[in-house]
Structures are given as structure tokens and as C-alpha cells.
């Protein structure tokens, strides 16, 4: 899958799984950190996103060390999904 397409898909998944009703896909900057700033998501939101990503793409985010790498930005997350999905 093209990384650009995947990024759009991931935006939709984030908005849906985290119920970000007021956020538009265009509001999410692919280069900005997903958690801690920008969207105002906290680390407990990340748990929900981990579960949704694992279910959708068959990837595994086993612990926060991997999570930090994967959630560094939307672009990084897309890269992680492409590298690890089944």
C-alpha cells in the first residue's frame, strides 16, 4: 500500500477509534507527534489506538518502547504499519 493512502486511512482510524468528533483528517499533521501535543491525546488514548491498530493491521505493539517509535508521528506510524503488517 502507498504510504500516502495509508496515512489517510490511519487518520480515519484515529478519528473513529478515539472518537475525535471535532477533528478533520486535514487537522492531523503527518509530521507532528501523535500524543502529548497537537491533537491533545493522552497516553491512555494510546491504549485504545494500540488495540485498534493491532486489530486492523495484525501488527503488534508490545510495549511503550516500540510505541514511542510508532507514535512519533503519523508518518512514522504509517512506516511502522507497512514494515510490520501481516
Amino acid at each position, binding site marked *: 500500500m502507498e504510504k500516502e493512502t495509508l496515512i489517510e486511512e490511519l487518520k480515519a482510524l484515529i478519528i473513529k477509534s478515539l472518537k475525535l468528533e471535532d477533528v478533520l483528517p486535514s487537522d492531523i499533521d503527518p509530521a507532528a507527534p501523535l500524543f502529548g501535543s497537537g491533537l491533545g491525546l493522552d497516553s491512555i488514548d494510546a*491504549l485504545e489506538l494500540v*488495540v485498534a491498530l493491532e*486489530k486492523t493491521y495484525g501488527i503488534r505493539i508490545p510495549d511503550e518502547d516500540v510505541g514511542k517509535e510508532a507514535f512519533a508521528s503519523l508518518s512514522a506510524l504509517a512506516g511502522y504499519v507497512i514494515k510490520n503488517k501481516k
Partner: protein
Amino acid sequence: MPDRVALVTGGTKGIGKAIARSLVSKGIRVFMNYASDDKSAEEALNELNTGGNYARTIKADVSDQQQVNEMIDGIVRETGRIDILVNNAGIIKDGLLMLMPDSNWHRVIEVNLNGVYYTSRAVLRTMIGSRWGRIINIISPSALLGRAGQTNYSAAKGGVLSFTKSLARESARFGITVNAVSPGVIATGLTRYMDERVKTEFLSMIPAGRFGTPEEVAHAVLFLASDEAAYITGEYISVDGGLT
């Protein structure tokens, strides 16, 4: 609570079996974990897996993370979910601290505290996915009052109580509650072999003047596992006849 799936660790004997029995009686599919006693496991299975009931036994040492993960993956593969986790498995290796063999300290922590970490961590993904979950940890008056000869056990159970409170805060947003039940002196296989002097000493401390029954503990667990208890989290209920 139909369609729900429960895992009770240490679920084939004593308090654990009474908890499993009460969950099964509500139509919940119950997996009774046990570590080593195949004979009790078979008896528990024969007793509970009857009629329209769904009960299974599953062998794993809760102090071994790999075995725990395999057990939980196996249950999720078979049923698609785990909704209720009752951390009941526990051991005691009593002795005064100054003379305690190191292995008695470590083993009690591994089973009673690390075991709760392994099982809880492994079920959270499925509970968050379904946005409903119940984790109920069995603790002890030793965690609340302390008891000479039980520094290892009270450290582990006190740890479990604090773990309960913190995990409750992490998981409340997902419809998951995390609570504890503290049984006092309960008449089980163990108390049957207690000598009369110890029995009398215990009874003198219990305002209710008698030991509790495994069923009385199971009622509290069943309540915390119910939909009605959705707004109770990070709490503990003592079932101890007033002991604490």
C-alpha cells in the same frame, strides 16, 4: 450476564472453585486455571461442566509469563474474549522475616504479585477492544492489617491492592473496573487441618464468631463482576465477619 467469559486463577479448589461455580450459575463461560493438581481439576470439571453449563480447566503456572500468555491466547482463540478475570491463585510460605529463606520471599512475590501483573496485562487488550471488563483481585486481611509470619504474603497482597487502585484509574475509561475482595478466615480444605489452638485464636478475633464460607466470598466477587457494579472501581470489599 450471558455470553461472557471468565478466567478464575486457582479456580479448581476452595474459594476459587466457589467463585467459578457462582459465575457458571449465571450462564458465564468459565475457565478454571490451576497450576499442578490434576486430580482436583478433574473433580472441579466434573462438578461444574454439567447440563447447559460451560466450564473448562486450563493448566498454567501464573508466575510464568509465557504460560500465562499462552493460556490467555488459547482462551481468546476459543471464545474470542475474556470479560472477567478473577486473580485468586495464591500461595503462602509463612515464616518470620529474620529467618526466612530467600526462596520463600521470592516465590510468594512471584505467584501472588507477579502473577497478577502477568494475567492482568494479558487480558487488557481484549477488554479494551470490547470496552467492558472486570478484574477482581483476591487479597487478604494480611494486606490491610499485617500479620506476623507473613511479611512476604502481606507485601504481595498489599502490592496487589495498590496495583488494583492504579490499574482502576488506567482502565476506567474503557468500561473496565478493577477491584479487590479480601476474604477473612474462610473454611476450606486448609482450615480443616488447622489445629484447635490456632482455630480458637482466630475465632477470638472475628466479631462474627465463625469462619466464613467460600460461597460468601463468591457472592462479593459475583457482585463486582456484574453490570450493576459498573461504577465501583479501585475499591476493596472485606468478607471477613468484621475481622478488619
